[in-house]
């Protein structure tokens, strides 16, 4: 696997070093978000030679992946005059005009130069139809049918990075919890596209609030059994889970800081206090203490900003603390019950859930403009929002489908898409990037 990755990187660099003429960018962050129309040319094994099963399967996987991008519109092949079977995979054998006429901004070509049976290399290129300039090109060597999902994810991550500046979505893995009974829930992981679904813990008790370490090695979580709370720590390297116990009664909402330390709400006197733990999971110092409930810390990628939930003004509201100056400001301005803050990695947005007459809904507070935006509208109750590393996608849990499931939306809102998690009530999606 390591060799595969190394070769991939090397070949990617080789192809990328050839001049890419275009610099098309899709602004997915601004208020007038763009969309991009993308056409997939039929996969080839040679000039006008359509690929076989593996080629078609990879094409299908790429299509499935791209359907998760709300700003991406896939061109219907029937709308392309002359069809999508091309005489070649790069200019001058790609007729960009036919794709332009179909409204496509980008066309993707795939070629398996040595055929697509067994273990073979595949080259994928993306061109801007307006200029014919190449946006992206990479060869993925020694691809077997088992590798196809990974190749589809890698290609989509690369393409997304070229178009938007971040490929984090396809490089991420969500941690979440799945309930299997009263006070029983385990931690699972899944790619946002639904692939690689895995149960990673097998514990007696209920896991809540999983959080990835920045290096992707650990998942920490609250673990509740009949008698006590503890901090669960799952190590991806060993596959084992350990329980860390603390004096007092609560262990609530752990989160990693960018330097791989854990912040968590623990008992101290009458109210929970947000502590920073050291690398041995022992209390290092207090991050937030007040004569009120203070839980659910979340950090930006610099570790200097911490958002959290506090009842200091009566009902629960979202606050932001500058950990350098120590100053704290209230983030949520409307509603009487705002909880479950999650700070975007770039530190500019806070997403949180607000209790409404119709259940909880997800909101995004822009810390730069001060504007608030509602990004989910039910039905059911939408909770536990979590920003992807790109500060664009938001995962959340919702009861809109009857059983609680994991869904995706963006900082702009729009139609939510469900992440396939294999049934069962699923909660607390949290993004991570295991290496």
């Amino acid at each position, binding site marked *: 696997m390591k060799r595969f990755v190394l070769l991939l990187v090397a070949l990617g660099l080789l192809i990328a070093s050839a001049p890419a003429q275009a610099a098309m960018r899709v602004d997915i962050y601004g208020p007038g978000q763009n969309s991009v129309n993308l056409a997939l040319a039929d996969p080839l094994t040679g000039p006008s030679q359509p690929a076989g099963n593996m080629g078609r399967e990879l094409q299908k996987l790429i299509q499935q992946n791209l359907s998760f991008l709300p700003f991406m519109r896939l061109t219907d092949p029937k709308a392309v005059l002359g069809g999508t079977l091309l005489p070649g995979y790069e200019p001058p054998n790609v007729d960009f005009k036919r794709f332009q006429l179909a409204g496509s901004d980008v066309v993707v070509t795939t070629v398996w130069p040595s055929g697509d049976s067994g273990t073979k290399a595949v080259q994928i290129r993306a061109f801007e139809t307006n200029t014919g300039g190449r946006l992206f090109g990479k060869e993925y060597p020694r691809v077997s049918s088992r590798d196809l999902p990974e190749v589809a994810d890698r290609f989509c991550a690369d393409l997304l990075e070229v178009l938007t500046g971040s490929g984090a979505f396809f490089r991420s893995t969500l941690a979440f919890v799945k309930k299997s009974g009263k006070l029983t829930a385990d931690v699972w992981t899944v790619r946002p596209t639904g692939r690689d679904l895995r149960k990673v813990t097998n514990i007696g008790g209920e896991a809540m609030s999983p959080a990835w370490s920045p290096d992707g090695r650990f998942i920490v979580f609250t673990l*509740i059994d009949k*008698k006590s709370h503890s901090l669960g720590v799952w190590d991806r390297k060993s596959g084992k889970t350990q329980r860390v116990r603390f004096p007092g*009664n*609560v262990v609530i909402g752990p989160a990693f800081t960018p330097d791989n330390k854990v912040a968590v709400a623990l008992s101290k006197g009458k*109210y929970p206090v947000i502590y920073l733990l050291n690398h041995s999971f022992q209390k290092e110092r207090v991050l937030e203490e007040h004569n009120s409930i203070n839980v659910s810390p979340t950090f930006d990628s610099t570790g200097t900003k911490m958002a959290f939930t506090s009842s200091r003004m009566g009902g629960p509201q979202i606050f932001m603390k500058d950990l350098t100056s120590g100053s704290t400001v209230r983030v949520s301005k409307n509603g009487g019950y705002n909880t479950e803050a999650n700070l975007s990695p770039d530190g500019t947005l806070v997403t949180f859930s607000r209790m409404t007459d119709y259940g909880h809904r997800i909101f995004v507070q822009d810390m730069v403009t001060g504007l608030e935006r509602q990004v989910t509208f039910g039905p059911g109750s939408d*909770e536990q929002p979590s920003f992807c590393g790109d500060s664009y996608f938001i995962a959340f849990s919702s009861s809109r489908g009857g059983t609680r499931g994991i869904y995706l939306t963006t900082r702009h809102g729009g139609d939510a898409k469900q992440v396939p998690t294999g049934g069962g009530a699923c909660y*607390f999606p949290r993004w991570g990037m295991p290496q």
Partner: protein
Amino acid sequence: MKRYALILALVMALAAGFGCAKKTSDEGTLTDDMSPEMRAAIQQITDGRVLFAFDKFDIKPEYKEMLKAKADLMKQFPSVRVRIEGNCDERGTQEYNLALGERRARAAYEYLVMLGVSPSQLEMISYGKENPAVQGTGEAVWSQNRRDDFTVVAH
């Protein structure tokens, strides 16, 4: 060797039967070997729940008599150890409810200690909204789930 193993097994069986002066039963269950007074006390300690208003953790006046009765029994039977379990209804969110449930358990804990119960007889846990007493929605259900339960964990 066989005889030694047999004796060891007999000793262990005897120890299991008679070894504990303070017996820990299955939590919350009454056993046959209890005195009638102890059975009645455990029943009374575990029976009454303290209910709370939404997002509140103050003990309402109507529950103070009930807590006093529990306190008197715990003082009468100092071997009794009770776990106070704080719970919330389904409307709040899970992490905040864990903290709120702890505040509810702590409110009863502090009241019992104020009435003279030894802190060593008490422990607390919050289940947040994970352990509802009644399933369903609507205020009639929610009001029953915003509660403190009392479980005798040792006697």
